[in-house]
């Protein structure tokens, strides 16, 4: 019951030699069913497509975003530092986008401030304290939270948070803090799930080492696990911030959209994204206001690049 093996005669030996050396032409490689090249063509073209997409987005938004400086001769510096946004004023319209840049930043940082402790705490709970519960209950909860559309968050912010603010802090209830809370809750699940992944990635050997020298659970988490997960945790927060930064509709529904600089977190405010969604439809293509809105979009793009650079930097440091 064995497959008999015939001894190689010299002729077959030479034949197999030529088989071992690959000298097939390009055409043959593309037509052969078993060939590698056909698969590679498919795979490489999609990789190229992604490069094209990024390049196109950057290019088009840059060109469109620079129009207000090149064609309409707005001063770039006064554009990003000016605090007066009166594009419709008949005499002497002014385009100062600083309040929006500030508003975006403020919402982003406040949201991170709100989300970070809860998200990291949940991540620790899922990855360290209750692994079974974590995967069986918390993970689905987090996935569902990620899936809830941002307009729904906005809607709820409008009906719960704004009235709450009005009752407890006076004013209209539309303010920076309301925006930050809505976005903070929105990014919670993102931050928590990435943070949980990075905590899970800490090798068990470190935990064992820590327990073996008589550490309590908290000592292990605080002194060993969190430092070891370190920069990935920061990455999780930065990623959440970049989401917060780009969120538009949910914020617009609750932040009040006032174009002046807020004096406190209980003042209404505006962000880059909200001003774009608010005004875009009212402007005509090629008008200065329209170009200025594109410039805001361009700034948004630039800042999201900054976030990416930060994330890359963190991950490079982690790998080093």
């Amino acid at each position, binding site marked *: 019951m064995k497959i008999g093996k015939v001894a190689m005669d010299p002729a077959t030996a030479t034949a197999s030699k030529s088989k071992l050396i690959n000298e097939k032409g390009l055409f043959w490689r593309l037509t052969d069913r078993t060939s590698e090249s056909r698969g590679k063509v498919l795979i490489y073209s999609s990789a190229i497509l992604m490069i094209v997409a990024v390049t196109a987005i950057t290019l088009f938004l840059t060109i469109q975003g620079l129009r207000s400086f090149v064609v309409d001769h707005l001063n770039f510096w006064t554009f990003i530092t000016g605090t007066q946004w*009166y*594009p*419709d*004023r*008949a005499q002497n319209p002014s385009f100062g986008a600083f309040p929006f840049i500030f508003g975006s930043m403020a919402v982003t940082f406040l949201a991170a401030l709100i989300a970070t402790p809860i998200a990291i705490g949940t991540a620790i709970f899922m990855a360290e304290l209750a692994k079974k519960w974590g995967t069986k209950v918390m993970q689905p909860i987090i996935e569902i939270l990620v899936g809830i559309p941002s307009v729904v968050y906005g809607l709820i912010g*409008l009906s719960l948070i704004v*009235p709450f603010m*009005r009752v407890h802090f006076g*004013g*209209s*209830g*539309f303010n920076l803090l309301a925006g930050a809370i809505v976005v903070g809750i929105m990014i919670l699940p993102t931050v928590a799930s990435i943070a949980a992944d990075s905590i899970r990635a800490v090798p068990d050997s470190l935990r064992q080492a820590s327990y073996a020298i008589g550490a309590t659970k908290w000592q292990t988490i605080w002194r060993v696990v969190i430092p070891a997960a370190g920069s990935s945790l920061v990455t999780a927060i930065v990623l959440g911030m970049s989401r917060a930064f780009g969120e538009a509709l949910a914020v*617009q*529904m609750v932040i*009040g*959209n*006032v*174009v*002046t600089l807020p004096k406190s977190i209980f003042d*209404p405010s*505006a962000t880059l994204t909200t001003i774009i969604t*608010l*005004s*875009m*439809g*009212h*402007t*005509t*293509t*090629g*008008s*200065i*206001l*329209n170009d200025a809105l594109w410039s805001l979009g361009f700034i948004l793009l630039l800042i999201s690049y900054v976030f990416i650079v930060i994330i890359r930097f963190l991950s490079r440091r982690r790998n080093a």
Partner: protein
Amino acid sequence: GNGSSSGSSDSSSSSKSDSSSSTEALSGKITIGGSTALQPLAAQAAKEFMDKNPNVQIEVQGGGSGTGLSEAQAGNFDIGMSDVFAESKSNIDAKALKDYQVAVVGMTAAVNPKAGVKNLSKKDLQAVFTGKVKNWKEVGGKDLKITLVNRPDGSGTRATFDQFALDNKTPAEGITQDSTNTVKKIISETPGAIGYMALSYFTANDSSVVKLSIDGVEANDDNVASGKFPVWAYEHMYTKGEPSKLVKAFLDFIMSDAVQTKDVPAQGYLSVNDMKVQRDATGKQSDK
């Protein structure tokens, strides 16, 4: 150029002849877009028009007045809807567009009932909106802080209010909402809030907001029609040059009594036909 057709045609006979002739003649597609304020009226009219002319497809999009004008000029919309005159927008060649004023909308300020004002002089109103006055008691109301609620730059409602109620004074900053619903909600819930909105949003037995009279003139359809109440605007439909036969038929339908006497008032607009005064692009008012 006012391209509205005369209101003399007999509605029932004209629409009958419309539909009978359209069965062979009218077919094709119309794309309408622009002002969100006008969108519901256009959509309703389109629905009725399509019921009569099954071979016609009308697509009604929003996008805002600016979009409506830009896209009409670019030829992407057959009809561009706008709350404002094309002349008032930059980068639009108003002469190349043909204006159809399909309805009139009146607006006034809405005030939170707790402020205790029902009427303001134009001067006081301007003082309130420009921020010179910060408390209602300075203009005869209760001792309550004033909270402004604005519409975004470029909004037709805001442009109209700024022009005819504030006489082109720049309003002070306040909360800005694009949505009349939200504006109304904020005003009704925030003590001391004031904003402005179309008359259609003040429903008859709704006491959640106060409909403000200006200089003692009540904001109602009659006063707008007669020109006594100044804050009103046309709703425009623009075509690029002369409209095609199909588009013209639709515009005629909108101007017909079927729409003007039914849908237009139903949505809180005034029919252009009822107006006793008219206005040009610069805002100059004259008797009709």
